[in-house]
């Protein structure tokens, strides 16, 4: 937060809001915790995207990462729920009021262990929301046990080695049908801000698996989720840009090296090729890419997969336009005639 507070917040966005209007309470995380950087990128993204905080639902589970909704957008409503249940709670919240711009932030413990079922089934349903995982490879809040996203062989602070297969959240998400899959790094605001903006606009569930170092329990030598490990092993897939509908197409947009993805609201996501050629609309190519990159020991970040043409959960449910939460007797109570018609069946 200090970083933000230091910056002069001068430019107002289209809603006339300053960046300071997107701040939250003071963080109580450890100094240097990756999660605080994610907080900053969320603030930047929502400010830049001209989203009114009033329209936002901030969702989380339990963990250090799940505390962050307290630290951004204090004017928005939020639900810091219970451990591992962010996905279903968010599903309910969003379906009951489709107008809510739903941003979830969870931890790797919250998502890949206790919350794994909910996570997978959220993606199967394609519930429109941004699902951010602040992935530090450990249970921060309970003091540093390995989580299921820890690499096999990575070392704990106490020196133990993780003997179990890692769950790669991106590969898993691709496997079960997630329609927006990205990996990023908490410290890479340049990449993370447009990714969050795109995730929020996405027509379905958007997963961003964000490597977010835990300085207290998983930032040592031998950890594969430390600041140093990231620095030494990062491979950045694309340079990302997000052009809002009201903005002019930027001059430096070169169709040769840059792919564009049209977002539902008319924004354009631009992907400028950096490390490798990759077709972000090819699900299985994306999954192979992740596997190959993992096997080279890299941390590959960027947008891995996107599909803006899929049917999202609200469409599947074929909902009336007004939020369900606003429906009263008039909209929901069938007539007396209907009732007596129905009873004919029961005589």
């Amino acid at each position, binding site marked *: 937060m200090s970083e933000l507070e230091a910056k002069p917040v001068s430019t107002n966005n289209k809603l006339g809001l300053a960046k300071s209007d997107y701040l939250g309470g003071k963080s109580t995380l450890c100094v240097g915790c990756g999660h605080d950087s994610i907080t900053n990128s969320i603030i930047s993204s929502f400010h830049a995207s001209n989203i*009114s*905080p*009033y*329209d936002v*639902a*901030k*969702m989380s589970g339990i963990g250090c990462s799940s505390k962050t*909704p*307290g630290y951004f*957008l*204090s*004017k*928005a*409503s*939020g*639900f*810091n*729920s*219970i451990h591992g*249940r962010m*996905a*279903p*709670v968010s*599903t*309910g*919240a*969003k*379906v*009951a*009021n489709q*107008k*809510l711009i739903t941003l979830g932030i969870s931890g790797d413990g919250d998502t890949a262990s206790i919350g794994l*079922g*909910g996570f*997978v*089934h959220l993606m199967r349903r394609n519930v429109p929301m941004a699902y951010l995982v602040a992935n530090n490879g450990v249970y921060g809040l309970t003091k540093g046990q390995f989580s299921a996203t820890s690499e096999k062989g990575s070392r704990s602070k106490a020196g133990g080695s993780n003997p179990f297969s890692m769950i790669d959240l991106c590969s898993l998400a691709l496997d079960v049908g997630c329609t927006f899959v990205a990996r990023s790094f908490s410290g890479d605001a340049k990449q993370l801000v447009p990714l969050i903006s795109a995730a929020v606009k996405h027509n379905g569930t958007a997963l961003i698996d964000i490597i977010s170092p835990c300085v207290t329990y998983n930032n040592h030598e031998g950890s594969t989720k430390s600041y140093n490990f990231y620095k030494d092993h990062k491979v950045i897939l694309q340079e990302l840009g997000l052009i809002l509908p009201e903005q002019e197409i930027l001059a430096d947009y070169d169709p040769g090296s840059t792919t564009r993805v049209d977002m539902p609201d008319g924004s354009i996501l631009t992907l400028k090729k950096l490390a490798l050629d990759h077709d972000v609309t090819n699900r299985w190519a994306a999954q192979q890419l992740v596997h190959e990159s993992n096997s080279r020991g890299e941390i590959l970040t960027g947008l891995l997969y996107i599909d803006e043409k899929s049917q999202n959960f609200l469409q599947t*449910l*074929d*909902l*009336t*336009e007004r*939020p*369900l*939460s*606003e*429906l*009263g*007797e008039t*909209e*929901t*109570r*069938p007539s*007396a005639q*209907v*009732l*007596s018609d*129905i*009873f004919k069946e*029961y*005589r």
Partner: protein
Amino acid sequence: MQKKINDFVINVATVNGSGSQSANTILIKSLFRMGIPVGGKNIFPSNIMGLPTWFVIRANKNGYTCMKREYDMVVAMNVATVLDDLKSVNPGGVFLYNEDLKVEASLLRKDTLNISVPFRKLVDQATDQLKLKKLLANTIYVGILSHLLDIDYEVLISVIKDQFADKAAVVASNLKAIDVGRAYAAENLTDTLIGDFPLKLEKMNKTQGKILIDGNTAAGLGLVYGGCTFASWYPITPSTSLVESFARYANRYRKDKDGKNTFAIIQAEDELAAICMVLGAGWSGARAMTATSGPGLSLMAEASGLSYYAEIPTVIWDVQRTGPSTGLPTRTQQADVGFAAHLSHGDTEHILLFPATPEECFEFGQTCFDLAEKFQTLVIVMSDIDLGMNLWITDEIKYPTKPFERGKVLREEELKQMPQFLRYQDKDGDGIPYRTLPGTHHPAAGFLTRGSGHNEKAQYTENNVQYQTVLDRIVKKFETAKKHVPKPIIETQVGAKVGIIAFGSTHWPMLEARDILKTQGLATDYLRLRAMPFSPEVHDFIKSHERIYVVEQNRDSQMLKLILMEYPQYATRLISIRNYDGLPLDAVRISEPLLKLEKSS
């Protein structure tokens, strides 16, 4: 011999998956349309095909249509249970069995009228189609019974036509089978040939203005009319049919002008997700519910505490089945009440509703949300298999006109008028705080809902005083709730010193039991609980009776204990009567122990 007219019990024993259910429905509906009070108990297995299943039909001119375990007639179609079924016939009753089961004559009872029917042969007369044969065997016994019992032929035909409305071929083949059965009976089962047939039906007019419906169907309809917009559930017997009823009627009658849905129904991945979706939807402001049974209720424990403490409107319909654990998934019990009342770790309490009739299932389809939204808390509706899945006669349900209670929700306009908004403060002195919904466009509206410690401002706190302030206010809220939950229904008899308390499906055998008791000279007053926390009337009832029998369908006297906790001063007045073997409760299992206890008191 005097025939029993409009007052007997028939048990049809078949194999599940053989299609007997539609035959049994035809039977029971025919009686209903003849104006005879009737009830049906489907005693089915937790299995899809091949295990024993029974359908018990009770016709009773006096309107006692609950379970009765003494069968005046058994129709035995299942080789696996035929010998047990034979034992279950009343002396003097009728044992009609499928000849093809090859029951040894020596095993037949002397004190029953034994009728053997060559079903295979008759089926061959009824159809050539192989795949219809199994099914039509059932229709044939309907035909036979219709003759033996004097079921009105017109009525019978009308029922069959309605039942298979769109399918002319099915109607035809069933009518054919009926006729085969009737013809066989007319020819072979005359009194002269088999002896006096002791049972007989006669038209009455006691079902006018009534319907024959199960509690789950009525509940689903009630949800439609009660403004339910969100249902999330995980399949589990016996709650599935409740959600299916809601889905069926919502899909028909809850479309907006563009044909879009004014509801969402979600099949969740498990019960933990189901309840959490409901919490999310309740938080967003929808009238949201889930339905489940015992194992699912257990899985909902953690989230139930969140509902209680973060004060989020939430509704669970628990259609109870026989526990513990997986237990007997298709048998009835009322054994979740103790667990449900304080579901979740820590100090918690929930509003419970106890419907006793399909009518009340319908009514509580709205009440559950009214209370959940008014008190911003979890409401658990405690139904059970007997109520939820068996057929009950009930008055045709009146069209609801009560407006929805949406509770203390502050919109932008109201917030503008207020100096401040404190989410968890007791502003009105009734313990009920105000809430805002997400998406409210006002700077004071937003707050972070959480199940961790919070103060009146909804801020995180570990401070002992701030924590306790919120927790104590919730107690006050539940004090207020006592005055707003559905009141008990009290029925008195002149000179009664003995009080009886019961709830839910126990109600029906209770009515019969009290009449039996009265015949035996014991006047009783009766309080039917409809909700927890208990309203003041419960106290007054207990206070004004020397002995209170608490009748319930569980082993551990769970309701008695809940009453005890609330009114310890009357501890010694409370006496327990229980049945918990999984079968629907009948009257004698109340009246007999009660009389015995009265004699020894």
